[in-house]
Structures are given as C-alpha cells and as structure tokens.
C-alpha cells in the first residue's frame, strides 16, 4: 500500500492528558497499520469549537482557523489538512468556506495574521479522517487488513451531529448515514440495523451549561442502543464519545436506570480488528470498560 501523508490537526482534546487522548492513541495505532503519516500542523491553536462564538464573534473566531490553515500551508505545503475531531474539522472547513465567499473577511484575517508574519492562501482542502478512510483508503483495503474479525459483537453506530452536518461525508445522507455501519460490518461485527438515534444530538458543549437538558438527550441515545441489544456504541466524535460515556452514572441516579454501555471510537474497533493489543487500542482509557472488545483483543 502506498504511503499517504496528511497535515494533521489534532485539536485540544486530543493532547496528552486531555479528554480524547484515547482517540488520539487509537488513531495513531490505526495509521501505523494503514501506512498513513500524520504531520502535525506546527504550533496549531484551538479552533474555538462550536461554543467560541459568544466571546469570539466572527472575525476573531474565524481567524483562529485562519492561523492553523496558514501554518499548514507554510510548513506542510501541498498536504490536505485532516482532523479527527468533529468540531475541529467543522470549524476549520467552515472558516475556509467563509473566507472563500467573503473577500472582506479574507482581507481582514490576513491583516490580523500579518501581525505574526503569516499569510492565508486558503487553497487547502480541509478533511475529516473518516473521509480519508472511505475515499483514500476504502473499505476493501480496510477489510483486507482485518486479522481478528470482531465476530459476535453487536454495535450501534452513533454518527452524532458534527461529523454529519452541515458537511457530512460525500454520498451519505444527513438523516440516515450508513458509513459507520458499513465500517462495522467490514470489521466483522454486526451493526445494529435501524439505530434510530444515530444522528441524535448529545447536547455538545451544552452538556456543561445545561446538564439536565443534555442528559435527557443522552439517555435516549443509550436507551435505543440497549433496545437493539447492542454490546457497545461506536462513534467518530470526541464530544459524543465523552458525553455519552461519562454521564451514565448521573443519568442512572436521576432516572433509576442501570446504564453501563461502553462507547468506543471507530479507530479502537479497527485497531483490535487489525490485531493490535488492548493498550495500543487505548481500551485502558475507557471509563466504562468495553469488556467484549478487550476480550477479543486478548485472543
């Protein structure tokens, strides 16, 4: 397989000791197996996610992404930017599109960037890791790498919001995207058919500021997975993963439920299927252990 290289934007939560460092670890393992090299954008900054608008307004918020794209164009010239975090991808791509549409904003952001000697050309495609997997690598190649099929696992594919809207993955519908199910199938597991909460919002950043409203939504995501006898939920999004995993005890207390549903990343499923250890797959970083996946990883 030919080696592939990308300019990588990991984002704040993927850093060491941060909330989705488990995604980062498992993505690194996955990329080793797929012969993909991720060149970090040197000195990247936060994208403002979807909650930076309050203090950040328009230009300052979009300029955060402009700095990242400019750094990528300068240091990782000619490489597509790839993000693993849904919010990072969305914010960066949104900024790039806005600068294309609005010459005034483009001029202003370059005026700001000039303060540190940077310049935005805005010629770089901004892509999600899932696009790399589907479009550049493909299900067949992924399937060919499977050494340890995930037989007997029933998995609810939770796509969430921001990997899916407003951009989504080419050829997939916003209302019923199928790629996660296809990936689960490719790895030898059994995708839950008609998982009705696959694109339900988990509350995003409002899980912090409006916890009860958000947890009511999270409850439906988990309930529906149980109703389909899923062993675990899989998601591409770090906010979804955290929100759906870590509040289960609080939901249990409030609603007298007994949730203990593991929530993993697609990259963790791939690592185990590719024959890697539980540790390489960052399964030791689950708050709710994915017991059946760990057991497979030991085989």
């Amino acid at each position: 397989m030919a080696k592939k290289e990308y300019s990588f934007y990991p984002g704040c939560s993927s850093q060491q000791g941060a909330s989705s460092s488990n995604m980062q670890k498992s993505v690194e393992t996955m990329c080793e197996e797929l012969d993909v090299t991720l060149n970090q954008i040197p000195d990247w900054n936060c994208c403002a996610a979807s909650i930076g608008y309050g203090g950040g307004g328009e230009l300052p918020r979009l300029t955060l992404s402009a700095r990242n794209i400019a750094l990528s164009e300068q240091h990782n010239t000619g490489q597509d930017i790839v993000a693993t975090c849904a919010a990072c991808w969305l914010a960066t791509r949104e900024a790039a599109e806005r600068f294309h549409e609005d010459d005034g904003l483009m001029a202003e952001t370059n005026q700001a960037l000039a303060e540190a000697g940077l310049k935005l050309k805005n010629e770089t495609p901004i892509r999600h890791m899932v696009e790399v997997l589907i479009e550049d690598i493909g299900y067949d190649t992924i399937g060919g790498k499977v050494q340890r099929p995930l037989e007997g696992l029933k998995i609810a594919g939770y796509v969430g919001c921001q990997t899916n809207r407003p951009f989504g993955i080419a050829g997939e519908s916003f209302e019923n995207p199928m790629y996660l199910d296809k990936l689960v199938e490719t790895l030898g597991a059994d995708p839950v058919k008609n998982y009705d909460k696959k694109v339900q919002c988990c509350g995003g950043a409002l899980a912090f500021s409006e916890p009860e409203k958000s947890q009511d939504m999270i409850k439906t995501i988990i309930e529906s997975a149980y109703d389909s006898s899923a062993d675990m939920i899989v998601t591409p999004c770090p906010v979804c993963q955290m929100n759906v995993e870590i509040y289960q005890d609080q939901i249990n207390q409030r609603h007298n439920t007994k949730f203990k549903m593991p929530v993993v990343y697609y990259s963790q499923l791939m690592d185990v299927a590719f024959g890697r250890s539980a540790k390489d797959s960052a399964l030791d970083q689950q708050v709710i252990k994915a017991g059946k996946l760990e057991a497979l990883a030991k085989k």
Partner: protein
Amino acid sequence: MTELNTAMIEQYRNSFLQEVEANVEEGEWVKMCMQCGVCAGSCPLGNAWEHPPQEIFMMIRAGKREAVLSSDSMWMCTSCYNCISRCPRGLPITHIMHGLAHYAQRLGLVPKNQPTQRFAQMFWQNLNKKGRVNELKLGLSLYFMNGFGEGVKTSLKMKDIGLGMLKTKRMAVTEAFGGHGVKDLSGFQKIMKKAHELEDARIQKSGN
C-alpha cells in the same frame, strides 16, 4: 444600557432588520426565512426555546429588538446543524443564532446568569490565554462560577466523573500548572488582538 446599544438604537431607529443585516454574522439571510417552521421542529432542544428560530426571524422583521436580543433562545443552540441541513431555503440558521447571541453579548443585553453565555465566555477566555483549551481549568472555572460554596458542592457532585477521567488519563492534574499551549504565544495574541480591533471598528462604524 451600553453606549454601543444606544448608538445602534439611534442609528437603526426604523429597522431592526437592517441593524441585524449590518451587524450580525450571516444576518443578511434573515429576510429569506419563509416561516415554514422546519427549524423549530428539527431542533433537539426545541422545547427549551422561548422563541424558535423562525419566530426570531419574524420578530426581527417586526422590529421586536429588545425581545429578540434579550431572549435566551439563541443560547439554547447546541450547534447540531439540523436546522441548516433541513432549511428548504438554505439559511445558515445555526450561524445566525450564534451571531445574534454574540451581538446581544456585545450590546450587554444577555439575560443575567445565562449559563451557556457564561460557559461560552469562559471557553473563549480559556483558549485565548495559551492558544489552546485547558480542559482542567475550564471545568473548574465552570464549577466555581457561582462562588466558592456552590463550587465545592458542584465539585463534589462531579467528583466521580473527574476521578474516572483522571484514572483513565483523560484529565491531567499537571494542567493546573501551566499546561498545554502554543509556542508562539505572543504572535498568537497579536493576531487575536488585531482581529478583535478590526471587528470592533467595523461594528462601531456601523453605529455612527
């Protein structure tokens, strides 16, 4: 009432729509709303909104300036983008809601103690300090936003979640001392300062 708010009332006396078009991110789209209500039906927190998006759009056209800007509706947006992907006319509704929320904050019209507004502001300040978000400090500042006593209570309530994250190395105590950040912090801050100046100047000019 802030000075900018007074200037804007003066300047756009007859048309709140024009004020929104000139000053709110993607505000020029507001008049394209055809009142179908798909956005309201698609919003995951729809029942928490005092005025759903299509109602806000109509209120803007009807000149209900204060009712719109001092509403907490826009702050209920979870950024799920359902409304954008379903709007038959392609209005960037999520962005207009964010834009209205930001504009209300700029004018000092946000309802007191609106939790998402306060969290959003903390998030912005947190990321600007070092160029990257410090999750530990962000969490703590959220828990302690209503003073020490309530902060201790919230921290106790959240203790198990915090311990779970610490044990799985998804939270690091070391973040309390320094933590992650960009290397060229001075360059980063110069860029952000300039971006704020340019945006402030644009809006100030619009009010004169």
